[in-house]
């Protein structure tokens, strides 16, 4: 335990800024999670591994001499097709089944992805250098990497673009209709199979963007996918399905929590704190609901 952070106000500002910028990125992943959960009723444990794969795409570009920031355009395009293929191979068989089946099946996919990434990209911790430099605030007492600001900005741009797309476009309307009532949508001529494939593809593309941003702001490693899955799961259960402002706010809240946990408990307990927070949130909601004799559904 280390309470230095409460004695130095500038550290607090630093942690808050870091947390909020990071939280916006988490919210982007969570939005993909909410999308597939709401539309297809599956929980995708491989979400985090899709993120890491997207990050490795940007990292490969970086190795090839292209600036990794272009990854935010290339990575989602590739990841869309990865998601689409994944849907056609596996996910379409778990859509109408028990949620536990989808959890276990995507857990299997996650293991495969982790190991394949380990083969292809190696087990080292890597980062793509964006060369954006840092911004100093408050007499150099708060440092913000520009890549973090860039990533938060890009996340917001994509999130807004997605919301507009979901509201205005034909496919977006079809996706929303399917989420409301798949059977009715089918009767009214929506090809739900196509909608599901597109939804999963869009989710994977969102993961790709987030991954590309993570490759320049944080670090990549084949086995760190699961914490991203858990973060997005947490954000979704706090914010609810399909409530974008709430997703953004709870994403920032999670980012703040993580940065403060990092300072107070120490970096080695950071991931542990995230998972404990998940447990606490679920248990809190369970007690809150049990007062009304309901349970989480």
């Amino acid at each position, binding site marked *: 335990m280390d309470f230095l952070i409460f004695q130095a106000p500038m550290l607090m500002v630093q942690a808050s800024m870091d947390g909020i910028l990071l939280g916006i990125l988490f919210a982007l992943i969570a939005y993909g999670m909410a999308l597939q959960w709401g539309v297809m009723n599956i929980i995708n444990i491989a979400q985090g591994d899709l993120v890491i794969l997207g990050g490795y795409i940007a990292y490969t570009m970086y190795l090839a001499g292209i600036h990794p920031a272009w990854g935010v355009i290339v990575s989602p395009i590739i990841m869309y097709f990865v998601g689409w293929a994944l849907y056609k191979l596996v996910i379409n068989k*778990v859509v109408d089944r028990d949620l536990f089946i989808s959890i*276990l*099946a995507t857990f299997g*996919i996650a293991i495969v992805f982790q190991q394949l990434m380990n*083969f292809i990209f190696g087990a080292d911790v890597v980062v793509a250098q964006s060369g954006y430099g840092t911004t100093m605030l408050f007499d150099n007492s708060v440092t913000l990497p520009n890549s973090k600001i860039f990533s938060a900005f890009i996340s917001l741009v994509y999130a807004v673009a997605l919301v507009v797309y979901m509201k205005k476009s034909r496919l977006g309307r079809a996706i929303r209709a399917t989420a409301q009532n798949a059977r009715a949508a089918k009767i009214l001529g929506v090809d739900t199979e196509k909608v599901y494939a597109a939804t999963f593809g869009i989710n994977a593309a969102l993961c790709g963007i987030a991954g590309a941003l993570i490759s320049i702001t944080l670090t990549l490693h084949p086995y760190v996918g699961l914490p991203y899955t858990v973060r997005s799961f947490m954000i979704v259960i706090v914010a609810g399905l399909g409530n974008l402002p709430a997703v953004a706010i709870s994403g920032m809240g999670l980012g703040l929590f993580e940065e403060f946990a990092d300072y107070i408990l120490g970096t080695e307990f950071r991931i542990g704190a995230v998972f404990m927070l998940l447990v606490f949130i679920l248990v809190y909601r369970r007690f809150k609901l049990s007062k009304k004799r309901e349970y989480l559904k």
Partner: protein
Amino acid sequence: MEKVKQKDLILYSGLIILGLAAPYLFSAFKVQLTYLCVLIVLAMTWNLQGGEMGYNSFGNILFYGLGMYLTASVQVGMFFPLAEWTESGGEKTFVHTTAQYFQGIGVGLLVSAIIPAIVAGAIGYAILGLRGHYFAICTLGLGIAAGEIAGGIEIIGAGQGFTTPPFPAEIVDVEARGKFFYFLSFFVLVLAFVFVKYIYGSRFRLILNAIRDNEDKAEAMGIQTMKYKIVGWMVSAFFCGLAGGIMGGLIGYIDSTDVAFDGREMGVFMVLMAILGGKGTLWGPIIGATLFHFFKEGLWTFILGWQYVALGVLIVVIVIYFPEGLMGWLREKYPERFGEVIDEKDRKSQVELK
């Protein structure tokens, strides 16, 4: 009725003789056989709760890892200062005498069974109020959080791991270590089997099934579901802790995320084995664990490096195509063997309704 009992008696005594003779028959595979026993215990107790109670837990690894750390800590802590032991790492300044070793592991296993059961009881009320996939994700989080937190605690070795006491060097018989751990695990297996078998014949199992099939209705019928859920989880935790304690001694080295709270291997294995054999049956997890172990040991070496890919594909295939498992498949094929009578007319009318 008498005849069936006699058949059972022959089966069980045959299996026990086989189990006792196994380390002599296959003396080169003692470690694998120990693994098999532990895997069966894990699958069987997971099934009690995942299969019978319908609470699919990814978090039983929590109790397994807890048991592992507890056994080793007690075994060391009874005679030597624990902190100095873990700090010295592999180089041993303290050596257990034979008597100390066995006393330590005995007490350690006892502690490693009881404390996880108490932990399960303590967190049970909060965690078991969650349903379905929330429970699954929550327990997954618990298991991983435990691994991450254990990896940060200095006194049990933190990130560098914890070397469990080596088998006493005074025993010159090279086979002794393997035999000791095999018989220990076999004893736990028999204990677990007898216990689970007893549960299968009792009212407790019917209550667990009622919870699985419809918890609200079970509650409405006057069953205090929470009480039974917690007891069910405590039974799982008890045996998971024991299994973990044995594995810690057998492996000889405890790492927080790769050995103890190994959600990527053991945590998935126990779910997979139970599903492979068939959830909600007595023999399913045993058969599933045996098949899985043979598959793993046979195939792992040929596809070195690709084993996790194979594991992931196996999970996907089993879950999607055989969610009922081997026993479920047999049951569908030969329902009369399982004592089910099918009314053809009724079955057909149900098919039409669908």
